[in-house]
């Protein structure tokens, strides 16, 4: 049985891929969220700061506008526990920059290029993510 969430997932995925395709063929850059954001933060992307800022403006404003125009709401269902939120954010930020990419750069853009590094990174973070949920949800029961 195909659930509705799979269809929305696939449609949303196609739009994400289209976004990456436009960024690559138009600007010649890999659409990686952690790289675009991180390069602004640490100054390594100063030359392309304008592209990065505009990308982030679209990324934040469009979901906001889409929700207003469609009269719907959305929720992240994220935890309200700062003891979980803060370490999780630190790990995501540190790990993604250390690995030079996250789900968009290594996952979407890397796998589609058949990049060995992208495929390996995806394997590593999927396994670590699975272990993390197993540990913190089922064993420790903190999430």
């Amino acid at each position: 049985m195909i659930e509705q969430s799979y269809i929305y997932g696939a449609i949303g995925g196609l739009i994400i891929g289209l976004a990456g395709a436009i960024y690559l063929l138009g600007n010649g850059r890999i659409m990686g969220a952690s790289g675009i954001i991180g390069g602004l933060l640490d100054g390594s992307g100063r030359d392309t700061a304008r592209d990065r800022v505009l990308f982030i403006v679209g990324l934040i404003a469009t979901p906001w506008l889409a929700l207003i125009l469609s009269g719907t709401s959305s929720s992240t269902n994220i935890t309200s526990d700062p003891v979980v939120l803060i370490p999780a954010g630190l790990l995501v930020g540190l790990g993604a920059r250390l690995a030079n990419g996250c789900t968009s750069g290594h996952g979407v853009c890397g796998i589609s290029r058949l990049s060995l590094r992208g495929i390996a990174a995806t394997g590593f973070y999927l396994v670590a993510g699975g272990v993390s949920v197993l540990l913190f949800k089922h064993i420790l029961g903190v999430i």
Partner: protein
Amino acid sequence: MRGLISLTSGSLFGLGLLISGMVDTNRVQGWLDIFGDWDPTLAFVLGGAILPMAVAWRIAERRRMPLKGGAFPVRIEQKITADLAVGSMIFGAGWGLAGLCPGPSFAAISFGGWQGILFVVSMAVGMLLTVPAKRLSFWSHRGA
């Protein structure tokens, strides 16, 4: 024009993340929860996203340069470095813990409440910590 491409790409990225449900931490953690009530949605998202990107890489191979000039990204040496492995595992651990990664955390800023902001601020600090962490990176010197 470069700016318009960036804005369009960021907008579509945000829209795709919203529609696909990747801004919902329950979906992401459901995908990673292979020992619980497993949710395969993320596979459809990743599969859907890879299709247009794979076509784009094919087109890029046949073209001399991107539309707005410059050059296509060069393929760096395909080596699985310690930074890549350790970084991806650190990233994955945090991704599982909160259910958010960098793209969706930004796409959800307008409706994610203080929790979303706290996550984004912590993530930004983590990104800035990478510079000193790379200088340390004891894992990459081991054995050499």
